[in-house]
């Protein structure tokens, strides 16, 4: 753990923490939006409220944590040093927060001006981060699949943001764009080439390290990020040239690649040498199972569109992939990263005068376990709510909001214990 996160030039605790605590609050807002809007929201993936909820999760939760965590771990997983990481964190956080809120509100309420402002803010945040990360990674030699994945994920994030911005502006300006097809492509770049490739790049390091599993075989490690990005490029070309059969085939390939990564990770987890399952293991198991179901469903629905014409299938896949898979992966990681960072900063500040409380005291395993159960109940309710929207959409939204607020509370409790120990350190005499 120390090797993953500590580094002499690691930014102060406040730099990543602001991202980690804001993210579950925005995810809770997604749950509350569902509870407020009710069952209509789950009837079609094109419902404005569902678009708002989706972006509260993808930008507000996922991107928020991903960028905050990358600022912390790029030097350690890739040997890439960001220039002025605290300044970057301080600048990015408000842009992302305000951009997410305006995007979600603009989509929900149909406010064109808010959508346009959201595009400006999110493009600024994306451009700033991508420039800083590319500068840091530029000269890093390609010695591991993790570095390859990180280098490929950044242009994928750029394309995701550009496509998303185009779509938001097209929606705001009433442009005659093929919105449905471009939205699929935007989601493909967002979840396949950015999120899944980034997840894989980080998983290659953290799954063996945290869960004491065997490593990912080298060939699969190199192939997954590259082939996912190549598939997305072909998908984009097929859309541009109107090649529908090729487009269909590459969408299936993208889902198949994701499935292969998820199954491989489940297999590695099955060979782990850590006897006692902890929060990250449970969250990743749940997330991987959700991803496997989502991708199998996606392959089936694409293969047999006439037999699967119910619009709820797309919503179900979305629930499995976003609150089901990605929120789980990220929650599990937060339960490792936050108590470790708190411990590391206290250990450094103590300088041997007063030992830092253990990670288990800073964020007790029992708190994480209880919250993970609430999260699982919420995901189950969300899945059932797609089938019975009138009865279950509101309870499911409330349950998900409660689980995310609980996550934020657990992280804040670690921060409170961190601050309490820091105060004890302040009154100790200097050596």
């Amino acid at each position, binding site marked *: *753990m*120390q*090797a*993953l996160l*500590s*580094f*002499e030039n690691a930014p102060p605790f406040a730099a990543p923490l602001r991202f980690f605590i804001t993210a579950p609050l925005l995810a809770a807002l997604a749950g509350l939006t569902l509870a407020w809007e009710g069952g209509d929201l789950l009837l079609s993936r094109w419902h404005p409220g569902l678009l708002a909820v989706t972006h509260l999760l993808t930008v507000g939760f996922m991107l928020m944590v991903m960028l905050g965590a990358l600022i912390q771990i790029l*030097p*350690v*997983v*890739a*040997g890439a040093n960001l220039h002025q990481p605290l300044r970057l964190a301080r600048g990015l956080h408000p842009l992302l927060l305000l951009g997410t809120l305006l995007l979600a509100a603009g989509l929900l309420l149909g406010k064109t001006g808010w959508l346009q402002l959201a595009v400006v803010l999110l493009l600024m945040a994306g451009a700033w981060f991508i420039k800083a990360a590319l500068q840091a990674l530029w000269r890093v030699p390609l*010695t*591991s*699949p*993790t570095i390859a994945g990180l280098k490929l994920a950044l242009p994928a994030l750029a394309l995701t943001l550009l496509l998303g911005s185009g779509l938001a502006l097209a929606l705001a300006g009433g442009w005659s764009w093929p919105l449905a097809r471009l939205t699929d492509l935007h989601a493909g770049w967002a979840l396949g080439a950015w999120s899944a490739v980034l997840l894989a790049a980080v998983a*290659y*390091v953290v799954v*063996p*390290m945290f869960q*004491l599993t*065997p*490593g*990912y*075989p*080298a*060939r699969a*490690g190199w192939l997954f990020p590259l082939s996912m990005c190549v598939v997305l490029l072909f998908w984009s070309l097929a859309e541009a040239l109107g090649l529908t059969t090729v487009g269909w085939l590459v969408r299936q390939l993208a889902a198949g690649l994701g499935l292969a990564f998820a199954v491989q990770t489940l297999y590695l987890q099955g060979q782990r*040498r850590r006897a006692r399952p902890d929060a990250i293991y449970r969250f990743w198991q749940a997330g991987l199972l959700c991803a496997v179901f989502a991708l199998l469903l996606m392959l089936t629905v694409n293969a047999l569109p006439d037999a699967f014409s119910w619009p709820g299938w797309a919503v179900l896949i979305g629930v499995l992939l976003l609150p089901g898979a990605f929120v789980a992966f990220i929650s599990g990681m937060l339960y490792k990263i936050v108590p470790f960072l708190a411990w590391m900063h206290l250990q450094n500040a103590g300088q041997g005068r007063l030992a830092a409380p253990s990670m288990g005291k800073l964020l007790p395993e029992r708190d994480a376990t209880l919250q993970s159960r609430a999260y699982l109940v919420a995901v189950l309710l969300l899945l059932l709510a797609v089938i019975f929207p009138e009865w279950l959409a509101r309870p499911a939204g409330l349950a998900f909001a409660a689980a995310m607020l609980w996550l934020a509370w657990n992280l804040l409790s670690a921060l409170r214990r961190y601050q309490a120990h820091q105060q004890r350190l302040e009154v100790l005499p200097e050596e």
Partner: protein
Amino acid sequence: MSHPKTPHVVDARYLEPPEPFVQTMEMLDRLAVGEKMLLLLFREPHPLYKVLRQNGHAYESELLPDGTFEILITR
């Protein structure tokens, strides 16, 4: 544990951090100048690389098909 590249091996593939770092530094301390040791891990230890560079130790890493990084370090 021995290895064709060197008899001095730390197999840290199933050890929790910071054990791989600690055991590597301990073994380096025991080696004579110019001797080599091998660290086996399922990741590249960039923080360790930095410490090795600062202390003037040369290192080279190789990724094996099973995902093991073999890091050959010269004292």
